[in-house]
């Protein structure tokens, strides 16, 4: 676990460049304004990105089934395809698409209630985002009892609100914090 933390600390926010589509935008047809110019710099076509985001969720919620209140800790990994109108600068802090769409697999792994801890459902979601906002939906399935049903979520920055309806247990609403360590592959548009 400590080694995992060390590797995560070292790689947090890493991104990797690919040189696909690398040429820039340039008006080739027309001559430069200065006929003797040595070089006219190409313009920025923007960037495409693929991000893999493993992370954790921590929050709490309420539900129709008993016990109604619970704290929740979960795991989630999402894969996102996005783009930016302008290319990143190398010395920017995190490189991440400002808009895009993706899919996530998650697990509300641990639920703490007044009674015994319990295991929450697994889920798959698809979503779209335009930072700082995101929204999506998917399906949840609880391996403990086979209960399943649809779910939707909205997020703002690192906060999320998720509503879920399980056909046996009924509705539940959870909210909390999601922390992710993105690994991003970047190439030109």
């Amino acid at each position, binding site marked *: 676990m400590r080694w995992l933390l060390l590797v995560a600390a070292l790689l947090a926010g890493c991104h990797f460049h690919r040189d696909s589509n690398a*040429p820039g935008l*340039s008006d*080739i047809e027309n001559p430069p304004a200065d006929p003797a110019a*040595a070089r*006219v710099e*190409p313009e920025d076509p923007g960037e495409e990105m693929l991000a893999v985001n493993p992370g954790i969720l921590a929050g709490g919620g309420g539900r129709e089934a008993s016990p109604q209140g619970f704290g929740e800790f979960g795991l989630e990994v999402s894969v996102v395809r996005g783009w930016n109108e302008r*290319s990143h*600068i*190398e010395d920017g802090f995190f490189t991440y698409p400002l808009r895009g769409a993706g899919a996530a697999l998650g697990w509300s792994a641990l639920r703490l209630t007044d009674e015994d801890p319990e295991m929450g459902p697994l889920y798959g979601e698809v979503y779209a985002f335009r930072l700082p906002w995101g929204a999506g939906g998917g399906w949840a399935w609880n391996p403990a009892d086979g209960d399943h049903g649809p779910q939707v979520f909205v997020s703002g920055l690192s906060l999320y609100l998720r509503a879920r309806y399980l056909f046996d247990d009924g509705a539940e609403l959870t909210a909390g914090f999601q922390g992710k360590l993105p690994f991003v592959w970047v190439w030109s548009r």
Partner: protein
Amino acid sequence: MSVSHRVRGTSLLVHPLPLLAAAVLLVNDHLLKAAAWPSAAVAGKLSDLAGLFLVPVLATALTSRRLATAWVVATGIGFAALKLWPDFNGAVEAVWGRNALDPGDLVCLAVLPFSWLYLQRGSAPAGPLRRAGATGIIAIACAATPAPRYQRDYPFWQVTSNATPVFHCVETAAWVVKSGKTGFGLTVRLHATGGPCSVDLASATLRLASGGVARGVPARRHLELARCQVEHVYVPFQFDSEAAWNLGVRSGTIELVLATGLARDTWRMTAEHVLHDYQRAKSPPAATTPPLSACAADAPPPKEIAK
């Protein structure tokens, strides 16, 4: 057992020294380096000093105190390799961004003994929130290490041979002035050093290494040049340069057919599509054109000989 080790380990970070080093790293990287204050060299060294102190402390905190000496040594070796070994420097840059290959930065290794001494001292136990907060701040400071300002670079076609031949009455030069996804534009400079000169640009052809051919369309085909007159002709070659790039077709031959008076010559140049790096300094050296040779009409009038 492992929990107890972790508690003691991350308590190392809850101390003014590593937090101060993290603050120096953040302020220096995000403010001072960009402003080159007090100077680019000092700002660069400050980050190296703070980083060299922090990295073994953070690594030890997240692993085991038994490895403290090993982490200090590994940090020193890694830093030396980063500053001396171009391949290693390139590999690190690919992941973490620009880092100067500068042996002069090795002077900062002097901070490592202080890092080792710090790791030998005992650390007071700290609560989980303080440990988590200090670990987070220091990890972010270590990861967010921007160098001076960079921006994206793009592949650019370049004339790599035979760029300045002489054809009878005219000296020529050619360079790629525009390059992008839809082709490139060539500037042809004509300098009538051999007296008044009539030049026809009969045709312009790009033959890619893959066998593909693109025709250039000179903006002007016929020029009447007075003695020592200089003219520039723009020749765009429009083709799917992005597709060629993606297919790995990154070289070709440019053929210009020039008629000067009664003579007709084919000027062949090789060209390559070159990308130096995904990012480059925002203020690169200014691009230059081939030097213009002296021409008799350009020369100052001869001095009168005193009698």
